[in-house]
């Protein structure tokens, strides 16, 4: 009987792994990696420098076809890249262009749209944000009320988007708007690409409970003119396009590479903290919690690989991908929780400014302790964004279990 099912790395994958290691060692800016590993705030240009290095290599978009400038990696290669680069402290590239609208334009976009937008996503020249949620439309996204009225060759867009991550950095927004009022609420929705520098677009920051830097925003749209060539696919087909996009987003939100890095960081902290004169990592109670989390992360990793293997055979990721979003975010949250718990009372001082590059004022406790509480509070977001974990359960219940 032949060994068809094979979980070991093939020799070409091992070669790829060492290529990635070499590339990362030579090209990942050291100061950026340090910021990532030490949980310091990242600037737009920090991510941009890493993206430029990847761009020269053709490695920005793991799953785009090569003829469009993508790397077109196998599922295993994508996983290897994620784990190797994350371990070294590579920042996550902005997903809105590369992982979200990119695949949508490749699938549904016009030739004009592909030529106009894809190259600048790869180069990092243009940043994207996602105009989905509205104040009255969160989990019930299809109830959205932002309107797009066709006047000649332009849509006039009015309304308000919210929770818009990186809107302050974005040049373009892919935006769901209501272009029709008849039929089911899902039917009248279209996807428009909106220039964020256009008159009538206003970005207002929303400060989150961690008190950190600007991450999410409100985006106000008042009589914004959008040329009709910026309509993606057909008018009224926005909902099915959005669903296609969300399934891609879910595969990418497992975050296994970053979680492995944070697990290593957790062990590092737990080795430096002492409890009754013994390193915390040797405390049976704390060690068991780390071990459980490490094993849970293995279970997620192998589930990601199984889903990715199906994807690699050409299938669109099914609703099963919701598992990855759910478990991935739960594990990310647990990691921030344990890291914070590991430093005990040193989690209390709130000194975000001491994480800035040029800070010369006092710090309290070990430096690794400073960002941990903020990260813990900030990471409560991950089970809410991209479709709350409860919505993911509804999706699995309906579409996988048939309940």
């Amino acid at each position, binding site marked *: 009987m032949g*060994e068809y099912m094979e*979980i070991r790395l093939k020799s070409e994958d091992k070669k790829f792994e060492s290529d990635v290691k070499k590339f990362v060692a030579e090209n990942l800016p050291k100061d950026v990696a340090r910021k990532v590993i030490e949980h310091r705030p990242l600037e737009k240009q920090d991510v941009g420098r890493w993206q430029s290095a990847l761009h020269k290599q053709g490695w920005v978009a793991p799953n785009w076809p090569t003829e469009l400038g993508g790397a077109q990696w196998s599922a295993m290669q994508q996983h290897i890249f994620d784990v190797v680069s994350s371990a070294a402290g590579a920042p996550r590239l902005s997903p809105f262009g590369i992982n979200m609208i990119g695949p949508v334009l490749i699938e549904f976009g016009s030739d004009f749209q592909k030529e106009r937008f894809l190259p600048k996503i790869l180069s990092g020249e243009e940043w994207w944000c996602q105009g989905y949620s509205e104040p009255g439309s969160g989990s019930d996204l299809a109830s959205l009320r932002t309107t797009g009225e066709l006047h000649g060759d332009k849509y006039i867009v009015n309304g308000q988007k919210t929770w818009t991550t990186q809107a302050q950095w974005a040049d373009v927004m892919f935006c769901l708007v209501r272009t029709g009022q008849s039929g089911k609420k899902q039917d009248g929705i279209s996807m428009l690409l909106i220039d964020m520098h256009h008159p009538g677009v206003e970005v207002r920051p929303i400060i989150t409970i961690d008190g950190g830097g600007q991450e999410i925003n409100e985006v106000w749209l008042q009589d914004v003119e959008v040329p009709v060539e910026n309509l993606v696919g057909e008018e009224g087909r926005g909902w099915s396009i959005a669903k296609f996009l969300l399934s891609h987003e879910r595969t990418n939100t497992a975050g296994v590479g970053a979680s492995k890095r944070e697990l290593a960081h957790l062990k590092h902290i737990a080795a430096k903290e002492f409890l009754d004169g013994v390193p915390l990592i040797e405390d049976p109670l704390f060690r068991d919690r780390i071990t459980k989390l*490490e094993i849970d992360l293995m*279970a*997620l990793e192998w589930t990601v690989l199984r889903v990715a293997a199906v994807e690699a*055979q050409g299938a669109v990721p099914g609703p099963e991908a919701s598992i990855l979003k759910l478990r991935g975010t739960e594990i990310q949250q647990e990691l921030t929780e344990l890291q914070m718990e590991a430093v005990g009372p040193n989690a209390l001082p709130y000194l975000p400014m001491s994480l800035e590059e040029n800070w010369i004022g006092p710090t309290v406790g070990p430096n690794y302790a400073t960002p941990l509480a903020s990260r813990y509070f900030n990471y409560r977001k991950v089970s809410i964004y991209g479709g709350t974990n409860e919505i993911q359960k*509804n999706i699995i219940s309906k579409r996988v279990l048939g309940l």
Partner: protein
Amino acid sequence: MNFSLSEEQKMLKDSVDRFLEKNYSFDLRQSMIEERQTMSGEVWEGLAGLGLLGVSFPEEYGGFGGGGIETMLIMESMGNHLVIEPYVSTVILAGGLVNKGAADWQKQIILPGIIDGSMLISFAHMEPGSRFNLERVQTVAKPDGNNWVLEGQKSIVLHGPVAEKLIVSARTSGEVEDQDGVTLFIVECDEENLGGHEYPLYDGTRALDVQLNGVRVGPESVIGQLGKAMPLISEVVDHAMAAFCAEAVGVMERTQQMTLEYLKTRKQFGVPISRFQVLQHRAVDMFITLEQARSMAVLASGSLASTDLSEKKKAILAAKDFIGRAGRAVGQEAIQLHGGMGMTQELAIGHYFKRLEAIDLMFGNSQHQRREFAKLSNQEGPVEYVQPRKKWKQI
């Protein structure tokens, strides 16, 4: 990396599924348990007839030369049908010890017998005080001329009541928990000075406690090198753990199916209870747990052939821990979602739950696996954390 099955593997899975579907009903299982039967001779013959008892053995002894994945497929199906036949006991454990440790002439005698279904052997290793510690062997074998005399007790010998032979681990040197000094002996069950006491486990499997009161065996009964059995035992137990993981996935799969069917058909408040979101989410939790358990079972079985021993060990410990926790979660949830019906002996669901709990106890429960895993895992050096301290003035 490849998670798809070859044509041969698909055929193997199909043939086990079809055979058990037809020949191993829940009612048959329950009547066997009621009649204190350890196994069904007919089912065993059938499995032998399909060649399933030889899948994991080399072709030169009449086997098929299959690997971990083939065993995984068989075990999943066994779990699906809640089979209590001595597959792990005779084929994976005893057969594995012989195949990997015995001399060629011993294999010539034993393996064909296992493969054609005529020979049943159990592995008598655990002792009353050993808990989950494999090294803790107190039974001793003392030399007497060319022969050996065995003294000690063995407990919870799975499927022991039907075994014609036992493979008994005994200390030929060293202290109670030493790695070195353990030797394996083949002992005939009709041996004089061998006492036994048979009883059922809570999941319906039958087991034997064994008293060795000076059992005399010849030099030909030694398997492998004197005093060097521990690495062999550990390797074969890894195979058994991977097999149990796969079985548990099969048990969970059917548990989940039965629960979904129940939710869709049971009506309360005038609607099927599957309409209630709180129950839907609990069913989803079961599904998520099952899918991850499946990944871990693949990891365990796929790792058996690995040459990196530490990675292999970690994979198996992690899988057995995860699946232990998963089995408990899925089993408990299934009972809860079945309501009062889940509490009845009549329904299959409770028996699936009990099997999941029993699997957790095979060669170490979750807690034990995590303790062992932590020993290996902490050998990794922590990542270097470079952070220069900024100079600042005291104010």
